[in-house]
């Protein structure tokens, strides 16, 4: 790739905006996934009683909605990222590309 093209892209404030925005949301969501998953594993390792405690008068335990919740959370944050990226980040990318290639 030619140096002046790279120069033009990197000096475009839109490119810096795209990079920092995407990286911020990417890392934020990555860390939240890690906290949720490893938090859940540590809960299983250290507080089995809590997860086996029944909710109210039923037989369903706190562990059940929490466990299914981790699965659903995983799907939802993935969809959140994809949606945001499909609109906002792609628009920004288009602008950067247009600016660089004209």
């Amino acid at each position, binding site marked *: *790739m030619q140096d002046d093209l790279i120069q033009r892209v990197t000096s475009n404030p839109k490119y810096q905006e795209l990079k920092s925005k995407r990286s911020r949301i990417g890392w934020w969501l990555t860390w939240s996934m890690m906290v949720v998953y490893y938090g859940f594993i540590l809960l299983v390792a250290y507080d089995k009683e809590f997860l086996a*405690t029944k909710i109210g008068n039923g037989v369903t*335990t706190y562990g059940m909605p929490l466990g*299914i919740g981790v699965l659903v959370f995983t799907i939802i944050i993935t969809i959140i990222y994809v949606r945001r990226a499909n609109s906002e980040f792609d628009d920004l990318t288009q602008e950067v590309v247009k600016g660089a290639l004209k």
Partner: protein
Amino acid sequence: MTRLSQHKSALALITLLALSAGAYAAGADLGQAVKQTTNWTAIGMFAFFVIVTLFITKWAASRTKNASDFYTAGGSLTGFQNGLAIAGDYMSAASFLGISGLVFASGFDGLIYSIGWLVGWPLITFLMAERLRNLGKFTFADVAGYRFDQTPIRVFAACGSLVVVAFYMTAQMVGAGQLIKLLFGLDYLYAEMLVGTIMMIYVLFGGMTATSWVQIIKACMLLGGATFMAFAVLLQFGFSPEAMFVKAIEVHSKKDAIMGPGALITNPISAISIGMALMFGTAGLPHILMRFFTVSSAKEARKSVGWATTWIGYFYILTFIIGFGAITNLIPNPMDYFVGGDISKGLTGGGNMAAVHLSRAVGGNMFMGFISAVAFATILAVVAGLTLSGASAVSHDLYASVWRKGRVDQADELRASRITVVILGIIAVFFGIAFEKENVAFMVMLAFVVAASANFPVLFMSVLWKDCTTKGAVTGGFVGLILAVVLTVGSNAVWVLALHNPKGSAWFPYDSAAIFSIPAAFLVIWLVSLMDHSARAAVDREGYPAQEVRSETGIGSASNSGR
């Protein structure tokens, strides 16, 4: 249930639990199976699946003209199609039968297990998918080695890919042999020959196009079948999970204990280590990474992984319901589903048959035939994907880039790839036969540990860290690879269970090496890169801005004509 039979079923389930707790450490495994009576319905349905997919292969072959068609289906898949294909690659027979069997045996523990298999996907979405598409062409080495000295990085990437493929594939081939005895009532050898031959036809003639469509069809069949089963189970309880749990607790010998964590997680370090292997390993599996090159743009890559995560997560929720459905449907009718009608002797065919028996309970013999055929087809599709990624590592990375230094025409590279497919197919059949009587439970887990400790750190650092150098990446990658294999050999699953050393003599105390080997790889990449002042290091660092622009925007990326 009488007190006596309760006592017996308690015994049976303790045995099952002991087996399944081992399975967590070792990766879902199908174990040794006893040959069942010949199931012609299942065989017929499987034959139908094979005929349909062979016609698709014929169509795909007519569209497979150059290297890009062969490796990546010419980048022609949509995000939705590729998402299904990724899900098809990932939802193995072991996860369908193994997880539902674990839920059947111990309830909540099965749920904990399935979560580990899903949590790597968001990471791929947030950090890898778009960058992979923007930088890559045919293999993940294209991405990891974008700005590096080609020879060393490609040798490393090919080693990482081939080790993962070898272990993952052997586990699949042995699983196929066990499954054919259980599901079709045929001999072990038939499975090896069938899978070996049909898979070779798919890959040789249809390349990535045929492989992708086999995955897509299989994913739809598996998701459709599992949805029907879960729906039928929930219908029995008026769509009330509470009612389903009440009935399960009533009939299950472990009673309330199925509703909370059991014996699956005892050592927190082992648990976190296994979690890390699954989470980061998913982002380092060569046959998964390769799937991101089959779409036309970063946007489609992102959509693919969004769909894949949705389908895989949905599938794990279904297997959980199916496991509980097996408890409530099978245990009250021991005559139909347990050895000699005796719960204490376990399910006919073993604990992994819970989902298959449930399919008969809710859908009759025809439906059971369908589910059996799908479970077997699953292995076929996964093996095809693995073979293609192994072949591309050999032909694109080793042959074309390292051996011929990139001076090779497409026809030549394609020929090398097809020869490799045949060799890999023969090796797969050979390993499948050689390991028939061995304990291969550790192999899938080892594949994940290697992917997490070698492929993932190199890919991650080369794409995201500007000061990473060839020397750093290659050294760190090999350290991760070797540490992952050596420590796994010292763990209980290999040292004692597979190599038959005395009980308790395992010298690595945890169930997974990942918690040590992943940080070690990152640390070595970082340290060696920092201390690297060679001329090549300067070139590597200077290449970063150009790589970053392409990885962030897609400017200049392969077959990205829309931009």
